[in-house]
């Protein structure tokens, strides 16, 4: 719980306090007119994101303390608000029935999230997927030096220096000292989910003053429901995606605010948030780009005028997106994925999904494959698939339509329409476009589609059902949640932790890694002979020292790294000995060796001395 208090303090001092100032600043300059926690959060995070980037570039070795100390200025800037009388009055103003209720139910959401993320700290670090560990390693390497270098291979490559959630993680780690695994896999995820929560509330425009339990239930449904849940929950459990998606929802809130009020300040914030979203997760680009595009299209259709200011702002977004992508691409060994378009065919990843869909319980009514085959239209499967994937969302939209007849102005409010069209477009991108070398990343598009479609459904349902929330729609939502949980969600919740890796270190191994951390210089590397063991990507993180070579299942494994690993394996196997081996270890700046069991290599001849051993594990250090 102390972690939660520390993180709340962080949010208050370094996000909401600046956010509050910028909110009032914008109001004073008539840039926007907002109320509530959402704009404070969005503005605070915008400042926080840019501040992090700025300080880490400006003072690589000591960014965190400087960046955080700068926030003292906001105490001065907010001096009027922070006057004791106003603070006390502000606190007392919270003690109204509705405000306390809102706080209570946000708190309830937080507690639910806290429980859901608990699994992330119960499992050992080596049971996490290599790509997750790779992300976590960046938090560690940010700590050790900036820009960070390759943490798994003895190369001189700079690795992804601007990835936002890892930068943020490093900063949080410096401030809170929370244990790394808990910080990154639990609390950063928890924070990102809360950002999603506020983004959702803002977009769906739930009437917070009324029927709060329904509000929480509704959000929880949106969060987890849908037959695409496994991929959705796996992605939600990844801090990068969750944080990026949370920022995206905040950005879209500002975009919608701009559409409703034509306040160009909101559009400016949207543009400022765009690169941050991409620096957290570049695969969210479609979610970022399509809604303003369709909204602009709608705008033109409405024959709005295009004054020079509008054009300038319209050009700002692509510029910001390009800047975000360019900055993201600065990770030297990680390029943006290549794109393969299947104009006359289907993305193989989508075909796999159809196969999976047939086996899952929720396809019974459509019986996708069989029906499409009967109709001699295999492509129909892909038109039917969205209904299968988001059956709850579809039911909510239909229910909303059935409860209340559509307004003469049309089914969907323009913002919702933009989201709906975007979701459909994203779905078509999913079935037509594959991203290589790892086609599985297409799942991002699928998940984004289900989120957007779910958002539209939630907004639709809330809009028409708000008048009968308490007595009627609560039952419907509760039943839908029960049905979903009973049919698949209870099982799928296991995916919130991702697929665990079945690995276990040999006896004494963890202690050996701790010894490395205690005995070696943080700029040096170590080599070990458990390179290909399952979970071996966790060893450098546990030792908090870069490894000279790591196993071969990492997604960032390129040719030079493979060659390097082969050389390391040759040294460990004793086939490369003497001066050649010593030269390589020197070149790789290896200071420590952790060896389990008998070793064919004569380590003493290479200049290493045994300094510690436990069970069959020996630690060798080069004096």
């Amino acid at each position: 719980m102390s972690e939660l208090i520390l993180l709340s303090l962080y949010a208050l001092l370094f996000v909401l306090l600046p956010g509050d100032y910028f909110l009032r600043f914008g109001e004073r300059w008539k840039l926007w007119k907002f109320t509530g926690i959402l704009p404070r959060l969005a503005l605070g995070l915008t400042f926080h994101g840019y501040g992090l980037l700025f300080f880490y570039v400006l003072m690589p070795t000591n960014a965190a303390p400087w960046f955080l100390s700068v926030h003292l200025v906001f105490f001065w800037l907010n001096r009027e608000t922070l006057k004791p009388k106003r603070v006390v009055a502000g606190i007392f103003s919270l003690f109204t029935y509705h405000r306390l209720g809102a706080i209570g139910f946000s708190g309830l959401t937080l507690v639910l999230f806290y429980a859901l993320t608990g699994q992330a700290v119960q499992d050992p670090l080596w049971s996490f997927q290599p790509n997750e560990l790779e992300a976590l390693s960046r938090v560690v390497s940010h700590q050790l030096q900036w820009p960070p270098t390759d943490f798994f291979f003895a190369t001189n490559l700079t690795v992804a220096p601007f990835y936002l959630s890892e930068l943020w993680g490093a900063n949080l780690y410096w401030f809170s000292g929370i244990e790394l695994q808990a910080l990154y896999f639990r609390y950063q995820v928890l924070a990102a989910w809360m950002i999603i929560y506020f983004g959702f509330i803002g977009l769906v425009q739930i009437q917070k003053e009324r029927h709060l339990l329904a509000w929480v239930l509704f959000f929880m449904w949106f969060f987890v429901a849908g037959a695409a849940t496994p991929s959705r929950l796996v992605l939600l459990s990844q801090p990068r995606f969750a944080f990026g998606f949370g920022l995206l929802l905040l950005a879209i809130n500002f975009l919608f605010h701009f559409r409703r009020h034509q306040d160009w300040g909101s559009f400016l914030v949207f543009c400022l948030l765009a690169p941050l979203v991409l620096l957290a997760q570049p695969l969210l680009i479609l979610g970022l780009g399509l809604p303003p595009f369709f909204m602009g299209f709608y705008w033109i259709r409405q024959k709005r005028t295009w004054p020079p200011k509008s054009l300038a702002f319209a050009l700002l977004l692509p510029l910001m997106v390009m800047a975000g992508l360019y900055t993201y691409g600065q990770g030297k060994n990680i390029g943006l994925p290549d794109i393969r378009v299947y104009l006359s065919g289907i993305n193989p990843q989508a075909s796999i999904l159809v196969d999976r869909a047939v086996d899952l319980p929720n396809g019974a009514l459509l019986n996708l494959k069989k029906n499409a085959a009967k109709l001699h239209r295999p492509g129909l499967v892909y038109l039917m698939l969205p209904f299968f994937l988001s059956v709850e969302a579809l039911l909510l939209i239909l229910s909303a339509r059935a409860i209340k007849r559509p307004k003469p102005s049309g089914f969907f409010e323009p913002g919702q329409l933009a989201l709906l069209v975007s979701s459909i477009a994203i779905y078509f991108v999913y079935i037509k476009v594959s991203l290589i070398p790892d086609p599985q990343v297409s799942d991002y598009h699928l998940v984004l589609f289900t989120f957007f479609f779910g958002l539209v459904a939630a907004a639709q349902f809330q809009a028409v059902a708000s008048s009968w929330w308490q007595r009627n729609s609560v039952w419907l939502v509760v039943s839908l949640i029960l049905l979903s949980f009973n049919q698949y969600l209870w099982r799928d919740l296991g995916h919130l932790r991702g697929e665990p890796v079945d690995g276990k270190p040999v006896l004494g191994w963890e202690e050996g890694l701790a010894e490395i951390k205690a005995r070696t210089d943080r700029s040096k590397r170590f080599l070990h002979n458990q390179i290909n063991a399952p979970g071996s990507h966790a060893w450098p993180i546990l030792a908090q020292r870069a490894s000279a070579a790591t196993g071969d299942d990492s997604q960032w494994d390129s040719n030079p790294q493979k060659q390097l690993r082969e050389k390391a394996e040759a040294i460990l196997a004793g086939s490369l000995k003497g001066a050649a081996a010593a030269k390589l270890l020197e070149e790789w700046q290896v200071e420590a060796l952790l060896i389990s069991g008998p070793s064919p290599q004569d380590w003493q001849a290479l200049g290493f001395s045994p300094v510690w051993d436990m069970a069959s594990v020996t630690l060798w250090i080069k004096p």
Partner: protein
Amino acid sequence: MELFLTALFPIFFLFLPGLSLAKLAAKRGWIERASFSGLILFGLTFHLYSSLLYRLLATSLGVGIWPYFLAHGVFLWIPLSALAQQKRPWKDWLKTQLFERWRPEQKAIFRVYVALVVVLIAMMRHYLIKPLQYYYGDELFRLSFANFIPARFPPKDFLTYSSQNIHYYSIAEAWTANIGQFSGMPIPELYLHYLVFFHWLLLLVGVIGLLLEGGQSKPLLIFALVLLFFWVHGPAGEQKISHFVFRQNSLALAIMALSSFGIFRFYKSGRYVYFISAILLASLVVGIKTVGIMPLGLLIPAVGLAMFIKKRLSFSKLTLAGMLSLGSILFWYFLVVATPVEGESAYLMFEPRHYWSMAYARRIIEHPMFLYPPIEQFLDQNLGFEPRPFLLPLFYSFEFVLLAIGALWGYQRDERAALDMPGGFLLAGGFLTMMVMTLWRFSISESSTVYFLIFGSWAFNLGVLYLFHRAVPLVRARHALVYVSVILIFALNAYAGQSLRHLYGPGSHVQTSDEEMEAYRILREETDQRSYVYHNQYRQKKFNIPALAERRAVISYLYDGAIFQSKELYLARFAEADRFFGGQMSPKEMQQTLDQYEVDALLWDTQETPPMDLEFAGFVKRIDHPHLKLWLRLNPLAGRTQ
């Protein structure tokens, strides 16, 4: 023509008698204007009682069924007198009866009826009609009863050579015989192809009647609720769906719904005739599928007592109703089910972890039912006793539990309305019946224990439908329709859509070749109805001789733990048949055997035992196929000896 006459049957034998009886009752002030469901309740009760009692009498007097059919001409007096009085063409009268009798607010219900009948016809055409030999063996066995009931009721044993009657559930089969004899449609075809559709229609009338007792609402809502009942049978509901298309069970279910309607009507109107009619009809379930009466075992006495306590029913009428229900149940039980042969007797044994109870706990988990295991585990650890007996029924009817929760939303504005006694008693009766299955098992024929779960669940679902629909006038029907549609679509999409394939019913246990079907045709056409057939397929669960050839068998398959078959007798017959077909008898002994059992035809499956020449015994080979030989006696005995 046969199909047309079959379609006329419900008009002549249910609707017109029902209409006459309702008019008579209304004239005497016993009831007010009866609804359509009320007419069918009266008509079905009258038809089943009159026809069964007539058959009993006719059997002893040796007369046919036609006097009974002709006597129904008396019910034409209503249309004829109406025509005479109003001087209207018959078309007008029919139009009035079929369409204009529906009050304006009920015209929408009429449209619902039409839509649902279309759905049921589609279901019948899609699922129910297949070649006769492909039907489930037990259904063919039950069909056998229908074949022999026209000759006498209860029928003589046709499974083995015996002079005794065979006692087993046969009221559904007697009802089949009524329709078949009236329409001229072959009984196997009628029983296997069309009978379930009849029962579904009766069920439809019962369910809609029940729903309307809760009050008027949107027709679409009634449509959705009926579809929910017909299409969603819960996870692990495959066996239940199969039983939904079994002829006996579907009739028992339809009667359960109609009787419940009658009891609900009595509770609302205080009209005693409905109570008596419902009791009489319900008691017939004992002769259709005894377990089916269980869920009503709470509803009938509880409603009677409630009405007595409310001083809306006198003590004498309550006593009369009690005696009538007990008397009619015992009457039908001893007439139809209780067997004088020394079969095994079944009783319930308390054994909470018996095979079927555990099997269903597993079957539920096999389906997407991810909440069941953790909830069961949690309660098991915290309650200190096994929660399965309570939990399994809840999850077995999961969607209807959700519907019941939805009903609460309507009742939260009017708590007193929730205390609707008949709905609650039907629901509770169903739930308790389901619990019987989880705690007890039959001493023999253990698999029959699942009937408690199946019938209990149907009753529970009916109770929930009624309570939900009753809650609807308190809120907007459109919202209720959304709620039901969401549950219906979700369930169909999750599993129920695929589970509906079980409406095809289980397949046959054994294969029947084209040659065998040809042999059955020859037996039907070239032998006397009273002929005995000796065959060597008695170790297969095959009842084709009495079912499809419509002839008596000297020996048939012995059911494990059957209450209607004497094990000693069958084992002796098996030993004798083994010697006969195994070639261990001398020609003289074979001749004696064939004469002793009055065998007119002999069906020899050469894959069971090698064939033999029977010309010496006065038989001629009618089918000579490598796998099948059919011998017919040159000078048949049937008719000479019986």
